[in-house]
């Protein structure tokens, strides 16, 4: 059974169509990532799923419950972590957790056990009496996650959970998420980070309120045309100039000391190297690299998902 079914979801803010006929399904115990540019409609979609907004059209089903028909029953089944820190800064970690337990009217004995387990899992047990406002960004997110999980939801909604959190804390956070599918929790999350997208089982690319593509990270990356090459050189502008105008050149991106070139032709590595040598440009390295999700993202967004 699918944990989340979204069908024909449309939402407008006045004249602006924030989401346009979006449909997808998320299987039970799956980690599903919503990836899209700023303003693509990710947060609107998350809020619709969480029952915080009422759509102009379409259907949402969470854990078998029709969200539009019975939003309060659906809320009981879901945990939601919003993009902004939405816990009480002047309440302690323990008080925040207790408050959520009461909101969801969990059995107190069961909740106490869940609280203890979450505090240990997130390593927050030592700080249980500390006010939430005095925690670091990473710890706030862990507390937010704990609050979203304490009533043992079937579906966990995470809206950009690691934006602004440093890599170390992000890694810890993902380690916590990794255990949840094993416990039957389905996760839907949004993220602007491509390396994070790669950690999801399946992804949906969203742009301008429309779903461009869904699939695994590999499936999406495979949609990138051509071969990705990394050219390392001390004189990147010369490399760029030498390659300019080639019919095979699909695109290039400048990195600090390297140029990523997307080349549509046989023997790409040799062809590019030959062209650079012919132009007398000294390069340290030309190697084939795997097209990343970011490349797929950029391509799909620029072609509107038509490829």
């Amino acid at each position: 059974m699918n944990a989340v079914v979204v069908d024909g979801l449309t939402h407008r803010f006045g004249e602006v169509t924030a989401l346009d006929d979006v449909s997808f399904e998320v299987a039970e115990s799956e980690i599903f990532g919503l990836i899209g540019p700023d303003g693509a409609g990710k947060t609107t979609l998350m809020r619709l799923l969480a029952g915080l907004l009422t759509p102009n059209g379409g259907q949402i089903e969470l854990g078998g419950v029709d969200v539009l028909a019975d939003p309060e029953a659906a809320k009981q089944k879901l945990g939601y972590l919003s993009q902004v820190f939405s816990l009480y800064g002047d309440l302690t970690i323990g008080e925040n957790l207790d408050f959520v337990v009461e909101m969801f009217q969990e059995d107190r004995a069961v909740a106490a056990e869940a609280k203890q387990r979450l505090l240990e899992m997130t390593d927050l047990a030592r700080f249980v009496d500390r006010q939430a406002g005095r925690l670091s960004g990473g710890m706030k997110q862990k507390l937010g996650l704990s609050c979203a999980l304490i009533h043992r939801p079937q579906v966990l909604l995470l809206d950009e959970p690691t934006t602004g959190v440093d890599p170390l804390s992000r890694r810890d956070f993902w380690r916590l998420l990794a255990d949840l599918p094993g416990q039957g929790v389905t996760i839907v999350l949004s993220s602007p980070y491509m390396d994070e997208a790669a950690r999801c089982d399946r992804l949906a690319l969203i742009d301008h309120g429309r779903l461009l593509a869904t699939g695994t990270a590999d499936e999406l990356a495979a949609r990138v045309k051509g071969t990705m090459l990394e050219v390392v050189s001390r004189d990147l502008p010369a490399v760029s100039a030498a390659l300019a105008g080639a019919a095979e050149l699909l695109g290039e991106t400048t990195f600090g000391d390297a140029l990523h070139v997307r080349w549509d032709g046989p023997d790409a590595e040799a062809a590019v190297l030959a062209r650079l040598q012919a132009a007398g440009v000294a390069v340290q390295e030309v190697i084939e690299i795997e097209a990343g999700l970011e490349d797929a993202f950029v391509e799909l967004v620029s072609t509107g998902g038509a490829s």
Partner: protein
Amino acid sequence: MRRIRAVARKEWLHIIRDPRSLIAALTLPVVLLVLYGYAVNLDLNELEWAVCDQDQSATSRALIANMSGLERFTFVGAIDDPEDTEQLFRLGTARGVVVLPAGLERDVFAGRTVPVQVLIDGSEGTIASLAQSYLEGAVNAFGAQISRDQARRRGLAGALGGQAIEARTRIYYNPDLISRKFLVPGLIAIVLMMLAALLTSGVVVRERERGTFELLAASPIAPSDLIIGKLLPYILLGLVDVVIAVVIGWVLFDVPVVGSPLALIVVSAIFVLTASAIGLFFSCVTSTQQAAMLLALASTVIPTMLLSGFAYPVRNMPLFLQGVAQVLPATHYIALLRGIILRGAGLMHMWPNVAALVAIGLLWPTVAIRRFRKAL
């Protein structure tokens, strides 16, 4: 119930963890009432008074001599015509004028009670009220003394209770003289109204501003549970303010609670609930704390000050404003407070006010709950 309790507990934690607003909530009634206390507690150290002696008799001269000898009474002179009184008041020469009518001595000896007019400059309310009571007191005391003398001379014990001369006061400029006793209950109501509405005006909109609203909205809590839970701690806080205000009224203004303290607490709880719900209502319909605060203040304090009968009697207002006054919770609360604190009246005797207060007290939380939207 669990959710109401949890919300109430959480709000209570917010209150006690924010020392600034807690201190403000507890000291503001003290500050406001004490400030007012000093303002009205100006002692009248010197009462300048004049006389218009139209009798020019031994008795009238005796009265003038008697009063001039009193402590704090400064005799500034005599006028011939009562019409000159305004001139004296305008120049500030005298605060009161005693008019002794022609035929005073004759009527006193004939055993009639003679009315003596006391004219008061009412432009400064509190001073005027003191001047009035001083002058009336002095005139009446003299009148009583004459009666006793006459009784003794005639050997008639029955005339003991008589009053040969009685002061009849007319106040210039401010006919409804404000008295402290009259003011204190109104002051308590205004301070409570302001504080309760102010404190709750932030509680929903603040959650929206800080983002914690998303957590609430994503939880299955019912709007009524949330609103009621949020109101409870503020009612408690408001009742603490009631106690503070009443104690200050007692100690500083010498206005003890004559009636039942329980009745006082009950009506205060209903009033604080209403005022808090009004604040909460504005918190539900605005998007910034400043806007909610301003609206709450403007819509509670101003009408309460002007229309609730705090200082200006409702019966003197145009009919339309009298109607408005009836829907203000403070109108009924002030009436009830005056009844309980000053007169010791029971709630049964003031049931129309009680009923009106309860009705308004049920209305506002309902409005707040209905206007609360669990959406972003």
